[in-house]
């Protein structure tokens, strides 16, 4: 995700460089280039893009090569950013001639083509397992990369289902009669609050899944899932079993009252309508508006800001902020992956940042 977004930010600097090398004085041709290039690339790639299946030589191996490939692409991106940065600085310091500019652009295009090595690698026969699906990393096609990257973490909460499976089966074996009432619950809604006869309230999150063809006896008591932070493992397990048995008994005796709760819980699939009434969505929206809006204001007006501060060459700052933007996109994706999983490393990063900021603050 970071790489994908990063290239969107970096493309401005790349186009500027190509323009400088090829048709420098002609203003009209740059508009033509910007209009035609992306469309033609998309049209060409349309027929080539596909999902390359991984080799069957073990899941672990495939994952390893995948991360290896990913790191390679990451490295190339960073190299590209550094290269563009150096180019901008050199162009700024000295007046470069046309031929040097062409040389710079050749280097740039070489770096751009470097990730193509990954899909071409197995053709040379060095390493079989290199042909893991990299097409979708390589080609900035949002549907391919984003879904791939984001799908896997979402499968995580389903991990605990195996145990529930067995528990539910055990209950059925004890002789509790379930079917008729139960299927009516399943059909009614995805979320229900089920209040059991003895007064304890349970939220059965995925009751509908119980009778789905794939996971037959699966139940997730999401409220219990939430409280697992509080309870130790064995207590939680015990309560889970207790709750399951109570629920089945209650259902069997027809004593369950159902309160429907509209809409999916967080982390499940929302439609636009369902998301539009959620506070989370608007918090995200206005948070983005505040951050991105103010950032965009600076980026848009940076030329004038630097002019008003008395810098003669405003274009360096524009190019530079484009590169910072790229690095921010790249780093943002990377760091957010880390902090979503390891808060501890995040603390270390914050400390590092503070150490970095101290000299800057002191200089002011």
């Amino acid at each position, binding site marked *: 995700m970071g790489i994908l977004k990063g290239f969107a930010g970096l493309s401005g600097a790349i186009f500027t460089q190509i323009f400088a090398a090829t048709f420098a004085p002609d203003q009209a041709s740059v508009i033509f280039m910007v209009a035609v290039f992306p469309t033609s690339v998309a049209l060409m790639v349309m027929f080539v893009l596909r999902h390359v299946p991984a080799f069957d030589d073990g899941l672990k191996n495939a994952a390893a090569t995948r991360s290896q490939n990913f790191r390679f692409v990451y490295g190339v991106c960073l190299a590209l950013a550094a290269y563009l940065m150096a180019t901008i600085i050199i162009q700024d310091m000295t007046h470069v001639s046309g031929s040097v500019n062409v040389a710079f652009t050749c280097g740039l295009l070489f770096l751009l083509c470097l990730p193509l090595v990954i899909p071409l690698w197995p053709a040379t026969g060095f390493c079989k397992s290199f042909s893991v699906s990299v097409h979708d990393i390589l080609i900035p096609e949002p549907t391919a990369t984003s879904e791939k990257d984001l799908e896997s973490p*979402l499968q995580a*909460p389903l991990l*605990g289902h195996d145990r529930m499976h067995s528990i539910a089966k055990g209950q059925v074996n004890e002789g509790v009669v379930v079917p008729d009432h139960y299927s009516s619950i399943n059909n009614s809604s995805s979320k229900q609050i089920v209040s059991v006869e003895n007064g304890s309230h349970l939220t059965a999150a995925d009751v509908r899944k119980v009778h789905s063809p794939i996971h037959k006896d699966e139940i997730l008591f999401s409220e219990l899932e*939430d409280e697992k932070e509080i309870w130790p493992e064995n207590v939680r397990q015990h309560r889970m079993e207790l709750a399951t048995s109570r629920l089945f008994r209650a259902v069997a005796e027809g004593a369950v009252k159902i309160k429907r709760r509209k809409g999916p819980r967080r982390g499940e699939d*929302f439609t636009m309508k369902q998301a539009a009434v959620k506070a989370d969505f608007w918090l995200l929206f206005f948070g*983005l508006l505040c951050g991105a809006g103010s950032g*965009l204001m600076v980026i848009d007006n940076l030329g*004038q800001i630097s002019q008003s501060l008395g810098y003669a060459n405003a274009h360096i700052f524009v190019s530079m902020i484009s590169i910072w933007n790229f690095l921010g996109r790249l780093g943002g994706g990377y760091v957010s992956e880390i902090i979503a999983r390891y808060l501890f490393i995040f603390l270390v990063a914050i400390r590092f940042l503070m150490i970095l900021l101290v000299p800057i603050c002191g200089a002011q």
Partner: protein
Amino acid sequence: MMHPGPTLKCAICSFPTNAVYAAALHGILGCGRDYVMPRPILMAVAQAGMALGHVLLAIGCPGSLYIGSLLVGFGYGSHWSVTPATASELFGLKNFGILYNVLCVSNPAGSLIFSGLVAGTLYDREAQKQRGLKTLATSFIASDQLAIESDEVLLCKGAICFRETLFIMTGVCIIGIVLNLVLVARTRRVYIMLYGKTGGRGSKG
């Protein structure tokens, strides 16, 4: 419902010694059981950096433009990799296209408000003021200077042109930080379920 208090404190503290804070998180705040934080915390951090960058740009001392543009560019960039991931984690992938693109509407909207209305108006006012002073000064010397001046494009010199705007932007960023921290407090549970020590695959003790 959950209590936003501990998480907020959790996000704000975290500077001195790791060991001390790890212990503090564990014991006092109770958020050390799973070392996971919601993604929007990064947006809050980025906006804090951007607020600092805005202040630096507003002060306008030599060199601050470099650091300020770095901070703002970095912060702005990291928004765009955090938002889609967050949106997909909270609202699922089934209707990701429309959800994400509705979120993206905030970008041109913010540009329209902050760049078009706020910055443009304030800049023009300041430039008008400067020209007024200039013409006032020149009108004593030569009257035909006045006609030439009024044909020129409105230009503003000095850090003053964008100072007010940038301070407003700092305030906006701080509002953004607050919004994101509220979001963090609200969604922490989801993230613990997704990546927590007991629930997910990313485990760290």
